[in-house]
């Protein structure tokens, strides 16, 4: 959708992710979409947000050049803190991180995420790359924000392997282990899901423009219920689009 006023699906997802970041929050940013979301949030409603990278970096302003990994030179230049993984993830373990973004191959209706094994872990059908820091963010961040492609095979009833814990079996299962936080939003290319009700099951909360509730549910691997009020995801505002253009100079997400 080129041209003034238009935006790509990724740009909508970035904008939606940016809105999950509140001003002054300390956020595990990660790579790709979330790093752009952090940039948009900083330039719009959250100028005091702080970005943490588990490789050992903290930034106020996002890097000004394209990053392929969080440790690329443009992310080092002008960083607020260059330190070790333990120092950054220690902030997470100390309960001092408000939110964290992760992606995943598979997510289930309680927000558990699998990035390790499809099938039995002792003899898997597919070996995925693994956890990285996702289990740590999922277990210890104030709110977990997941970003996924919305496909039936990815949004499943129950993941084969819980790499990164969501609400586990649902209800109070997570809290019983002493874990705070939990998934607050799953942002896909079709919709936004949020936990709802006593079971903390993911419900449809917002449908992206151009998509329908029915289509979203058809493309979900469990019987996706709707939250009491399902809205349409607001498209990027003028201010958000301006920020997007600054953050994504090369048009990578166009």
């Amino acid at each position: 959708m080129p041209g003034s006023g238009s935006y790509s699906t990724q740009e909508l997802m970035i904008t939606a992710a940016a809105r999950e970041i509140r001003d002054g929050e300390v956020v595990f940013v990660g790579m790709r979409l979330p790093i752009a979301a952090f940039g948009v949030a900083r330039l719009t409603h959250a100028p005091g947000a702080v970005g943490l990278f588990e490789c050992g970096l903290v930034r106020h302003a996002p890097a000004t050049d394209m990053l392929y990994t969080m440790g690329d030179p443009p992310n080092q230049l002008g960083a607020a803190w260059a330190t070790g993984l333990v120092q950054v993830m220690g902030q997470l373990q100390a309960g001092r991180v408000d939110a964290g973004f992760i992606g995943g191959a598979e997510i289930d209706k309680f927000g558990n995420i699998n990035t390790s094994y499809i099938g039995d872990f002792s003899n898997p059908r597919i070996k995925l790359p693994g956890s990285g820091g996702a289990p740590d963010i999922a277990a210890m961040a104030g709110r977990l924000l997941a970003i996924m492609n919305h496909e039936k095979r990815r949004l499943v009833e129950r993941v084969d392997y819980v790499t990164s814990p969501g609400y586990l079996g649902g209800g109070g299962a997570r809290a019983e282990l002493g874990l705070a936080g939990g998934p607050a939003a799953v942002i896909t290319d079709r919709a936004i899901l949020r936990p709802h009700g006593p079971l903390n099951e993911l419900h449809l909360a917002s449908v992206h423009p151009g998509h329908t509730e029915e289509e979203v549910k058809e493309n979900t691997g469990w019987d996706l219920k709707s939250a009491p009020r399902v809205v349409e995801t607001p498209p990027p505002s003028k201010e958000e689009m301006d920020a997007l253009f600054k953050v994504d100079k090369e048009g990578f997400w166009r």
Partner: protein
Amino acid sequence: MGGKLLSLGEAMGRHVNDGDAVVLGACLEPDVPFAATYEIIRQGRKNLNAIAPISDASTDMLIGAGCVTQVTGAWVGNVSGGLGHNYRRAVEKQIPHPIAIHDHSNFSIAMALTAAAHGMPYAPLRTLLGSDILRSNPRFKVTENPFSETAEPVVLVPPLKPDVAVIPVQRADKDGNCHHWGNAGLIQEAALASDRIVLLADELVAAEVITSDPSRVPFPGYRVTAVCHEPAAAHPSPMTGRWRRDTPFLDQYHRASRRRDDFLAWLDEWVLGVADHHAYREKLGGRLEELRIKDDAPSAPANYAAK
């Protein structure tokens, strides 16, 4: 006796043995010691335990080359590409042979190395609760926090003591005193946890350069076993202030590694058919020169004078 300054071939030959637990990649995305990975493959090392939180495509290469029977880490793949195809083939189809995986998260392997680095009997964690990593890796223990008045589970991870850590740094002297800057990942913990440390120095400098700034030293020279002067030892991964990332190179590897035959051809072209890292740099030629960081953004000086 002799000095610590060795060629990369000598250093890998003497200090990385079959069956060793080896840290190749302690800094997360930057400073992956690919030059050492290649040399280990050239020397045909076997039965290694490849330790790294993540190590971009390095571990995938070692697996494909048949050097590795155990992986201890959080993530094996290709950072910009995605899946690690050799990793998949080994786990799903035992090609070239089976490997055992010791699953960790980034933080649990970090704390396992921290425990070893600082002589802790183990490290207590708040992470991994609820994760199936506790099912697939039986080395963790779940206990109760004795300081908590209510039931509070704590995960304990035992120390992880590698035989050798290979650490790229921006500069070092011939005795193993070095400077590293930019994100530090786990380089301090991995080095201090290991019996042997091999430095890959992008630049070899006089001792005075290092002692001019002892706060920039990540671990002390007396703990370092060998120093190799190898510019761009981390290529295709980046090194802060020295080299940008060669993402197309890694993408090309990712495509080539999709099929076993193509991987073997890639290995012939870039590793087995290349004599050493000097020849590798020559082969990269202008492409490497393109990646060299040419701007200067110097740190503000710190004064250490005593009078």
